[in-house]
């Protein structure tokens, strides 16, 4: 049994002292077997010393998680974290000094890694010059809208017996989307509503699904025979709940901004959203609807903007705000049983990699 004398200065903290005191007490109480007592104490100390030494010298290192006592373990961990933070700050200061010292010759600042930076390249990303994809898009179900042949007319409804926030959400959506009509869902089947809508020249059917008096899903069906998208809705903020908002939106058609829809699926969804609004926005109204895609979540915002001078713009948020996540895209009008799905979110397969996105 090697007994190494190590100075006690390292463990100059209150709790540790308590430990030693308790140990010494137990040893003194042990009484007669002095040698054994001494050995015990020293053993205890040596194990502690060895532990702390082991941190510095050889593997396997003593880790904080092996301490069985919760208070002591927590304390050691806090200390460890403080040490780490101190070292990090010191490193930062050093780097800053070096950068200032070098002046112009300093190496460029490193770009921090973000999940968007590290995104795995998706092979379905649309190349603007690709003829085949351009042809596919030019002749898909939205071609009638994008060629200016039809004007959007949206029917907004909900799941059966909506309550509370969902009703208000529907009403606010109807002010945001021009030419939108809200109808009460009288428990009618969607497959029966769709032919009637087509007959009345509607181009979109928007069904807002409700769960416990607030919206949680949207089924967006493009009408003549277009794709049906099912989204999960989260984080809905009605007009009342938005701080520093402007006055209610006017009847002018808003401009539409679609951000970051880069893959083929993203393009399809982007076109789906674009076709909700009339093709020629009324700039007089200064309203803009934004669908911003980030990490497969689509954020919807509705703003009114004003140009203060050529470079500065002021915006006020109007309207409702919500986030969408695509759950499935089905070819054809709504037919969840027999329809063919163009894309289905399969969480276990698709969400496995944090840096891979589908839209």
């Amino acid at each position, binding site marked *: 049994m090697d007994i190494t004398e190590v100075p006690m200065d390292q463990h100059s903290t209150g709790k540790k002292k308590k430990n030693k005191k308790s140990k010494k007490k137990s040893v003194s109480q042990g009484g007669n077997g002095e040698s054994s007592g001494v050995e015990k104490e020293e053993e205890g100390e040596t194990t502690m010393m060895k532990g702390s030494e082991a941190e510095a010298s050889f593997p396997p290192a003593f880790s904080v998680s092996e301490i069985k006592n919760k208070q002591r373990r927590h304390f050691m961990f806090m200390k460890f974290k403080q040490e780490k933070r101190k070292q990090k700050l010191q490193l930062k200061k050093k780097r800053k000094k070096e950068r200032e010292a070098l002046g112009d010759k300093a190496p460029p600042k490193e770009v921090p890694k973000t999940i968007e930076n590290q995104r795995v390249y998706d092979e379905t990303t649309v190349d603007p010059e690709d003829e085949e994809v351009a042809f596919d898009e030019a002749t898909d179900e939205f071609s009638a809208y994008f060629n200016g042949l039809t004007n959007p007319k949206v029917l907004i409804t909900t799941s059966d017996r909506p309550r509370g926030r969902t009703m208000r959400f529907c009403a606010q959506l109807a002010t945001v989307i021009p030419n939108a009509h809200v109808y009460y869902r009288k428990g009618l089947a969607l497959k029966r509503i769709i032919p009637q809508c087509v007959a009345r020249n509607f181009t979109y059917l928007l069904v807002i699904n409700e769960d416990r008096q607030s919206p949680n899903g949207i089924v967006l069906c493009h009408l003549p025979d277009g794709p049906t998208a099912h989204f999960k809705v989260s984080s809905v903020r009605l007009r009342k709940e938005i701080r520093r908002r402007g006055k209610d939106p006017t009847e002018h058609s808003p401009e539409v901004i679609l951000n970051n829809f880069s893959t083929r699926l993203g393009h399809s969804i982007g076109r789906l959203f674009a076709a909700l609004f009339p093709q020629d926005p009324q700039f007089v109204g200064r309203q803009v609807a934004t669908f911003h895609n980030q990490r497969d979540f689509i954020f919807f915002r509705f703003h009114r903007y004003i140009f203060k001078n050529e470079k500065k713009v002021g915006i006020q948020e109007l309207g409702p705000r919500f986030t969408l996540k695509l759950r499935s895209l089905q070819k054809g009008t709504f037919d969840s049983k027999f329809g063919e*799905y163009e894309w289905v979110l399969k969480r276990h397969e698709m969400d496995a990699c944090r840096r891979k996105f589908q839209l």
Partner: protein
Amino acid sequence: MGDRSRLCSVWLGSETGILKGVSLSRKQAFNFCNTSQLSREQEVRALCWGDPAESELLVGSVDGTVKTFSTEKGTFTESRRCGDPGDGCFSGLAALSGSLVTCTECGTLRVWREDRSEPVTELNAGKSVCRMRQSPVHRNKVATGGKENGLKIWDLERPETPVFTAKNLRDDWLDLRRPHWVRDMAFIPDSDKVVTCTSYHQVHVFDPSSPRRRPVLEAEFGEYPLTALSLPAAGSTVTVGNTQGQLGLLDLRGRGLVCGCLKGLAGGVRALQCHPSRPLVASCGLDRFLRVHSLDDRSLQHKVYLKSRLNCLLLASRELQEGGGAEKEGGAQEVKEEDEDEVWDAMEQVQEDKPKRKTTEEQQTQKRKKGGD
């Protein structure tokens, strides 16, 4: 053009009317079409080999034309009008020693000869036919099935009545008639039996030689309509795909239990085919990808992005390379350069860095393997 088409081991037809050929060993995909003449009217609905030597492909489009594509020359050699677009799209195409058998969705099955523009034989296979398939053994036998139209096996030499008409399943426990919608079928190689899959997520096996007209085996897979079916070379199993992109392997020997699932597809399966000799299955669908899975370990071997939605698929019986051993174009040279061949084979085992299109595919397979571990 001809050399490119000779390389291709997988042929696909897409919704934009483009015939695509994919060479898996070289990881390249080729579009065989006129870019200026693309139209949705040319959407390819049916593909089949024109002859047993697999040198010609028959491509059936929505507007009723059947084009012949020669794999040797790499171009479309002829085109014939086989029906009106008003009849519906082709649901099946087969070649029969000099004549062409076409079947449309409205149920009309026609046999065309090369020289005449009118069909030689015409029969009505029901109100709706979703698929028509030809028996690989008896070339004049075809099977048809559709919505509320059970499996019927026809002998083209006696077109008046079907050889076998399947009976619907017994009424269920509430005495209600069971709905029936056959989507795809296949002839089991060594026997008379036929496997069908339905939109009510059922797989049935029928035996025409037995007096029983109801299915011999009933199995279910998943909760979504099964749209494609294929029989692997090994026999006794069947691969099915449904509209949500789930591919399952079912065992036909016992009670039709699911042996396993193949993962990766994100959209509905439109066509499935198993390779005639190797344990590989190729699938294509609405998510615009061609995927080749291995049936032994159910791993994804190849994944190819082809920019349009894919409707149908054909595998060449030639060796589908999996990255081990390159096929040399000059056959005579192979004998002389045997030593070099070994060197080449050894070299090919290493991951190829071909920058054309498919570099991410290896990463994908690696990732999947890692994920599996």
